[in-house]
């Protein structure tokens, strides 16, 4: 390993512009003649639109246009779509309700966009937006997913508000296991609804060039090509070859910036109508209503154990709230990204999962860091921990008895785990966390009047999304391969064009590390380009912890092609047989001689083309690869959380956090650790602080950062982060991926620790001081009643 190669903690190339304020986020961009857009959104969760009166608004100073759903429909702009088909048990397709970018006819959630004002300045647009009068006939709101199927249908296409009733696994085998079980652990679990809140709010700038009849969209998207495809092919705002999508610096995504939303569609459409670039910047309070939310499952789960504490069956029934409309990937989150992970790290012979996805009058729900896997991990790891307590078995010991130990391992829920060593991560985590000393620490806490608890989360996830045929057979409408182009310049510098996208993950550095390492050229000589559909060939973007496993493998495959061609060029230069050319550390040598050519000389020769005829070899040195993974990858690990609780206030302090993760091989350990830190923070946020709260009328009560508690530095501890390594067998770099693991592992570890401390399982997320305090008192009064 060199100082800048694979495995080195290289400091990031992109940081200079970020620490000096020279980043180019979408709101930093100002297009000449730019007009500003403000959306008018429904204040009601469910209402018929009787009339939209735009006359007063249109007459306000500086207003260029006021547009509604009626104009959108008249221009035959298509609907937003969900791109993953899920079929119900009875074979019927999911009930996808029509989703226009501006509501017409009715509104289905507070925040549903109804009209847009385009004006010269933002202040003028805001002033005019206040003058739009909408007559609504308010309808009753469906807000509770657990009750939605008994309420009147929001959408005609979905009776009982049921989008699909899906299942996976073997119901008969599981029922038999439950009957035969020595012990059954049963839990009712709510996976709390979250608001992603990336620090950069969403922005869209739509621009139309009348001379070329072409469109440009600057957008805070995690996947510019996918946005381009959906907007052209499905929403039909512009033909694909006439639409350029640019995602410049993007300030965090966590999934919320994957989806194709109404606002970018409207900005593009409006730009053509007014003949000016149209820019929309989301306010934070607006983001609470405009960005897809995450999680929101209600689950009943039962885990069957035999007399030795071996898990013999798992039965799960989940109601998944998808909100008012189906967002772009929404259908897949509680199905193929959830149920397929219910085996956890354990050898479970029988699993059955039923999922009912429902509509409610709430913001649409879709992927948010972890996307289905945090939900699965929480179910499994709570069942295992509670099961251990109920059976009087140490929770680490129970896990050890059930770990999968031989690979590859076919689970009963589609996934085949390729390689792992769960025992190793548990052992290392227990040592680092000093589990042995916990008893002593607990007694010290007790002497100080505090409660102390320890909780495990041995998680696994499937990422490196995804093998195209596999997901295609499961209903996904797109392939999930990735592309890379490696362009060697005549002067020997290299540009890597990737279909992945960075919004915090450091690809400008890590991708350059891989190229520099493989080609033996200085890392300063390598540039990474992404985020512009005019520059980069089609790519699927970044989410699902895929950029390392899938994106970098595409880069490696392109590098291999470059090396092969460069050797051919070197062979001509050195007048040797191609088979005799060796390439190492940036130098081409003829085997067994001291004849050599440097990288730079070979690059130049490839373009000058004096040493070979066109008939023998094409000039140039640029290769492209599209890589389709052969399997998901399976990062896994053990997180141990230790908490101290003040029983008088219910306040939880995390006094220790140990994370031992197996991410396979790692390109930049500093960046990987950063991903664990950030993921854990989001998981702790879910467990202790965050919840998107709706009242019975469908008003989002937690509608700003004043009401929705984001994790702050004070809420989080310093983490102990380490790794074990079982290389991923399915890609040449051995990478499993790391972006989501912290968010997947953490919630169960926190709740397992708190329930250990307070001695009751009757606790829901978020475990706020109030919730913990109440749980302690409920348990105490039940204890008293029992005596």
């Amino acid at each position, binding site marked *: 390993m060199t100082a800048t190669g694979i495995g080195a903690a290289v*400091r*990031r190339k*992109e*940081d*200079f*512009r*970020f*620490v*000096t*304020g*020279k*980043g180019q*986020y979408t*709101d*930093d961009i*100002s297009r000449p003649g730019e007009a500003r857009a403000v959306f008018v959104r429904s204040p009601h969760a469910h209402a018929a639109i009787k009339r939209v009166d735009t006359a007063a608004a249109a007459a306000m100073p500086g207003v260029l246009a006021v547009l509604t759903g009626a104009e959108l429909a008249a221009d035959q702009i298509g609907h937003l779509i969900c791109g993953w088909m899920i079929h119900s048990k009875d074979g019927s397709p999911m009930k996808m309700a029509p989703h226009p970018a501006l509501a017409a006819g009715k509104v289905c959630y507070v925040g549903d966009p109804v009209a847009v004002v385009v004006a010269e300045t933002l*202040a003028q647009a805001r002033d005019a937006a206040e003058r739009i009068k909408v007559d609504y006939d308010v309808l009753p709101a469906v807000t509770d997913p657990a009750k939605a199927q008994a309420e009147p249908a929001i959408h005609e296409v979905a009776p009982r508000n049921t989008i699909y009733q899906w299942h996976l696994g073997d119901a008969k085998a599981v029922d038999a296991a439950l009957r035969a079980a020595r012990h059954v652990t049963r839990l009712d679990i709510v996976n709390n609804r979250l608001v*992603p*809140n*990336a*620090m*950069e*709010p969403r922005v869209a700038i739509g621009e139309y060039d009348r001379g070329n009849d072409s469109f440009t969209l600057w957008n805070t998207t995690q996947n510019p090509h996918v946005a381009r495809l959906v907007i052209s092919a499905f929403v039909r705002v512009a033909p694909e070859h006439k639409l350029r999508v640019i995602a410049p*610096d*993007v*300030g*965090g995504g*966590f999934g919320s910036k994957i989806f194709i939303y109404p606002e970018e569609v409207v900005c593009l459409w409006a730009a053509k109508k007014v003949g000016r670039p149209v820019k929309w*910047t989301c*306010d*934070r*309070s607006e983001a609470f209503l405009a960005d897809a939310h995450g999680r929101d499952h209600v689950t009943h789960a039962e885990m069957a154990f035999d007399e030795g504490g071996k898990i013999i069956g798992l039965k799960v029934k989940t109601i998944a709230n998808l909100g008012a409309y189906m967002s772009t990937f929404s259908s897949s989150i509680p199905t193929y990204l959830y149920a397929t992970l219910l085996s956890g790290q354990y050898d479970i012979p029988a699993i059955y999962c039923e999922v009912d996805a429902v509509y409610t009058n709430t913001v649409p729900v879709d992927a948010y860091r972890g996307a289905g896997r945090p939900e699965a991990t929480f179910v499994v790891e709570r069942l295992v921990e509670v099961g251990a307590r109920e059976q009087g078995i140490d929770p680490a010991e129970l896990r050890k008895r059930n770990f999968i130990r031989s690979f590859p391992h076919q689970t009963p829920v589609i996934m085949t785990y390729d390689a792992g060593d769960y025992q190793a991560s548990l052992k290392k985590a227990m040592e680092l966390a000093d589990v042995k000393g916990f008893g002593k620490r607990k007694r010290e806490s007790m002497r100080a009047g505090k409660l102390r608890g320890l909780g495990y989360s041995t998680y696994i996830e499937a990422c490196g999304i995804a093998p195209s045929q596999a997901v295609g057979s499961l209903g996904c409408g797109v392939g999930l391969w990735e592309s890379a182009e490696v362009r060697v310049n005549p002067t020997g510098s290299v540009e890597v064009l990737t279909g992945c996208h960075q*919004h*915090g*993950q*450091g690809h400008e550095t890590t991708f350059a590390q891989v190229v520099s390492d493989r080609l033996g050229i200085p890392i300063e000589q390598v540039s990474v380009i992404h985020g512009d559909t005019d520059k980069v060939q089609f790519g699927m973007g970044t989410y699902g912890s895929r950029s390392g496993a899938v994106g970098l493998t595409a880069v490696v495959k392109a590098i291999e092609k470059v090396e092969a061609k460069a050797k051919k060029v070197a062979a001509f230069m050195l007048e040797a047989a191609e088979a005799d050319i060796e390439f190492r550390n940036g130098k081409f040598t003829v085997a067994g001689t001291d004849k050599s050519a440097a990288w730079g000389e070979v690059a130049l020769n490839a373009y000058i083309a004096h040493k070979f005829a066109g008939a023998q070899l094409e000039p140039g040195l640029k290769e492209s690869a599209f890589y389709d993974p052969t399997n998901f990858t399976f990062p896994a690990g053990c997180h141990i959380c230790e908490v101290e609780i003040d029983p008088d206030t219910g306040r939880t302090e995390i006094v220790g956090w140990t994370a031992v993760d197996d991410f396979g091989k790692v390109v930049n350990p*500093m*960046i990987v*650790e*950063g991903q664990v*830190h*950030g*993921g*854990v*923070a*989001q998981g702790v946020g879910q467990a202790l602080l965050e919840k998107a709260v709706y009242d019975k009328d469908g008003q989002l009560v937690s509608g*700003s*950062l*004043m009401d929705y508690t*984001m*994790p*702050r*530095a*004070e809420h*989080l501890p*310093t*983490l102990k982060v380490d790794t074990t390594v079982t290389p991923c067998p399915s890609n040449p770099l051995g990478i499993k991926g790391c972006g989501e693991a*912290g968010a997947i592992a953490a919630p169960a570890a926190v709740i397992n620790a708190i329930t250990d401390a307070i001695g009751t399982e009757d606790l829901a997320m978020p475990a706020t001081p109030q919730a913990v305090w109440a749980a302690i008192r409920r348990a105490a009064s039940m204890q008293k009643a029992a005596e």
Partner: protein
Amino acid sequence: MPAVSMTVNGKAVTADVDPRTLLVQFLRENLRLTGTHVGCDTTQCGACVVHLDGVAVKSCTVLALQADGCNVLTIEGLAAPDGPLHPMQEAFREHHGLQCGFCTPGMVMTAVDIVRRKGHELDERTIRQELDGNLCRCTGYHNIVKAIAAGARAMKGA
């Protein structure tokens, strides 16, 4: 429209502004200093922190007119134009105290102000408490805390 005059990063500026204009809007849109960011609308997030007459303020909660006659320092003015990075900026890079970079200008400006008020030897607990007004969604604050402690020490020599 009333006129406002102030010094920003050492340069005198004057403009006519709508009285509702926030200082952050004035910086970003009138002066095209887009390093100061808007992350929220309730003064929670801290992405907009600048120094006003030497004191950290949230520029989203200051009207441009309130800064009339004042000295404003933004992230762009922290290091000399062609000079090396400010020690706090360098510390953030060295310790991987940023991922997407959006909260970073506000974090750095707040950090420099913490040093002004609390000195160069900052313990973890103090830093975490002092960051109450700065949100980050990417880093979990882990490396931000390390960066600020290191930056504070490095500022001592400077």
